[in-house]
């Protein structure tokens, strides 16, 4: 007995020793609060930024470099014809409520996401699934109606995480997943707290708890960072202060890339004349917007594709800054007195970028009426209601050129040729063929001037200099804390 006690005391001492030296809690700043915490039922990026890889896991997952890695599926076999995926699940995986994660849960999750009445924001990810069969508790077979080269990629999205039938209904307020952290508390309007989950199947994270604090105001975010109220702000909303933070030895400024194509979204139903859209495109000086709104952070784009992707085509020349050409196009088309509405959501890129674009459009004779809107209002009237002419928004989902194949999507671009190409792309697995298709698609939407393509949003993060392991780039919307630790 006494020996036992001695051993326990020693063990305790050993365990607690590093705790004194090292901090194991972290506070992450986020500009936007998620509307709910269910990644399978909401489109907001902020949901994934809290739960992805931390609380919820899917069959596969994105790595920091954007690669698709194994997660709950330890391995998989793909049939010759590319339509049957057999996933071997990891053994000993439990949900945070203690129930076991097995093939039934995978079937439930996928069937739930692709069901008729599913509220999944990315139903297209599951559209190709014809059938999900449970072979045995640790093997699940997914049959696709057509081969889909992107299937493993699709399964890595936050929208494709695995949930349990017991807890799926309450996901919005109490997300129960298989991740290394479990949900602890959500104080609405302030923060979400997660704590390490003891029963996690994989490597335990170095952190024992994490708090996501929501600070929408750029000034307050800067103040919170300076005061040490937040330890890291992965998407820092005030690019103008980065130089000052960078010069401060207490902080690291991490600049990387995101999947955020920032565009001057144009309602193609209202601005249906391609000549007008072309005139708008040539009136825009991207470098001025990047310098003026983002203080130099951002890469100009000429189509809706991420520049760090190997299939990216630099089509910026297609819509090069040329106000004289814009004026000429408008004059040739006989268009005068053009007045458009410009709705600006809260992010810096939109509010500041919008003022710059308005000035640039005015130069060529296009008047804009700016309205600043909050996100809820933007989702309601612009995104759902489609009641807008122009708006500025960053599309942060990875590989989202497919939205141009959806005529009912908020910018309402309807081009059958593009839709056919996209349908072909979805069933093409050959990388070379996919590259060709993607190139063609990028060219079409650039030639049609569907939207004004502005720049690729940079990921400008600020973190305490003692924190390591934060993602440098944003291949998906996430604040993956599994590899994050304090050096002292």
């Amino acid at each position, binding site marked *: 007995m006494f020996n036992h006690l001695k051993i326990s005391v020693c063990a305790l001492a050993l365990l607690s020793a590093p705790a004194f030296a090292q901090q194991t809690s972290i506070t992450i700043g986020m500009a936007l609060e998620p509307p709910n915490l269910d990644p399978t039922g909401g489109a907001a990026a902020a949901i994934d930024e809290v739960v992805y890889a931390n609380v919820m896991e899917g069959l596969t997952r994105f790595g920091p470099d954007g690669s698709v890695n194994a997660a709950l599926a330890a391995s998989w076999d793909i049939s010759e014809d590319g339509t049957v995926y057999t996933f071997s699940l990891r053994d000993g995986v439990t949900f945070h409520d203690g129930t076991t994660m097995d093939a039934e849960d995978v079937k439930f999750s996928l069937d739930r996401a692709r069901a008729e009445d599913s509220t999944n924001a990315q139903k297209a990810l599951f559209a190709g699934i014809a059938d999900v069969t449970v072979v045995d508790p640790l093997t699940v077979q997914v049959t696709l109606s057509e081969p889909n080269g992107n299937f493993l990629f699709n399964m890595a999205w936050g929208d494709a995480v695995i949930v349990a039938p017991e807890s799926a209904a309450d996901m919005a307020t109490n997300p129960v997943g298989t991740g290394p952290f479990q949900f602890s508390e959500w104080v609405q309007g302030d923060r979400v707290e997660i704590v390490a989950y003891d029963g996690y199947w994989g490597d335990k994270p170095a952190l024992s708890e994490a708090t996501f604090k929501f600070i929408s105001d750029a000034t307050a975010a800067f103040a919170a960072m300076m005061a040490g109220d937040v330890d890291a702000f992965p998407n820092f909303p*005030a690019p103008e202060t980065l130089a000052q933070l960078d010069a401060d030895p207490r902080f690291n400024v991490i600049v990387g890339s995101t999947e955020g194509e920032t565009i001057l979204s144009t309602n193609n139903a209202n601005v249906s004349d391609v000549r007008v859209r072309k005139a708008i495109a040539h009136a825009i000086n991207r470098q001025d917007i990047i310098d*003026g709104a983002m203080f130099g952070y951002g890469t100009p784009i000429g189509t809706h594709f991420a520049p760090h992707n190997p299939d990216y085509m630099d089509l910026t020349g297609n819509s090069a800054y040329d106000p004289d050409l814009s004026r000429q196009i408008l004059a040739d088309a006989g268009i005068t007195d053009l007045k458009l509405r410009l709705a600006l959501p809260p992010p810096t890129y939109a509010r500041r970028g*919008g*003022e710059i674009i308005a*000035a640039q459009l005015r130069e060529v004779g296009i008047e804009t009426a700016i309205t*600043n809107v909050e996100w809820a209002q933007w989702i309601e009237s612009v995104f759902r209601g489609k009641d807008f002419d122009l708006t500025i928004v960053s599309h942060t989902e990875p590989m989202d050129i497919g939205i141009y194949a959806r005529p009912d999507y908020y910018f309402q671009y309807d081009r059958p040729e593009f839709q056919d190409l996209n349908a072909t792309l979805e069933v093409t697995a050959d990388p070379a063929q996919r590259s060709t298709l993607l190139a063609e698609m990028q060219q079409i939407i650039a030639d049609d001037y569907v939207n004004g393509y502005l720049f690729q949003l940079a990921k400008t993060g600020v973190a305490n200099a003692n924190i390591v392991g934060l993602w440098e780039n944003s291949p998906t919307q996430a604040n993956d804390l599994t590899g994050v630790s304090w050096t002292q």
Partner: protein
Amino acid sequence: MKRNLIIGGALSTLFTLAALLSFLWTPYDVTALNIGAKFGTPNGQNLLGTDHFGRDILSMLMVGARISIAVALAAVSFGILLGVPLGLLAAARRGSVVDEIIMRSNDLVFAFPSLVIAILITAVFGPSLWNAILAIGIFNTPVFARVTRGAALSLWTLDYIMAARVAGKGAFRISFEHILPNILNLLIVQATIQFAVGIIIEAGLSYVGLGAQPPIPSWGRMLADSQTMISFAPHLALFPGAAIVLMVLGLNLLGDGLRDALDPKIRRART
């Protein structure tokens, strides 16, 4: 104190002249951006420097003065046009149901803080210059109604009003021919004070994004925009901030000076 009147008058005139001048001429076009010249400190070309879009701050302040003054002026006029007749009516029908309805409705508006009313109105009807005017104007109405009623009530008991009534003049004519001219000095002083309040509320609304919308420059939004840049470009916040302070100070001093100059009781007490 003549000094109040002179300093207040000088400051108010300065801003008014700057605003009027901006209709004809500004050093630079305020809607033209010049990103390459951003954060310019005050120099020979840009007397007050340039902002984060490279716009000339002096030009923006001049046009901003125009907006501030226009909004405050319109809102004060709104308050006077609505509040003074209501106050006169309430005083003429003192003690009646009409008086009660007018004054209790005023209390209702008064019960809400002015800025909250303004935010409410602009949030419901959408942010624009006109809604800002409406919002501030509505808050001004009970102020003028109360001042008018209070002053008019004391006049109604005076002998010369009685004489007018005996002569057969109706309440309407008495209100406008005898009461109004005699409370004009009070109203002018009150208008000056409300003007200053209007400027502050307009700046406040613009600061939270509910006032004049871009690209129209406004003092409040200039402050809001420059918040995060204050550490490395303080002049962006300093000049619009100083403009608001000086304008409001000027109007308050002017109001004080006018009261001293116009109020016979105070004048008599001093001499």
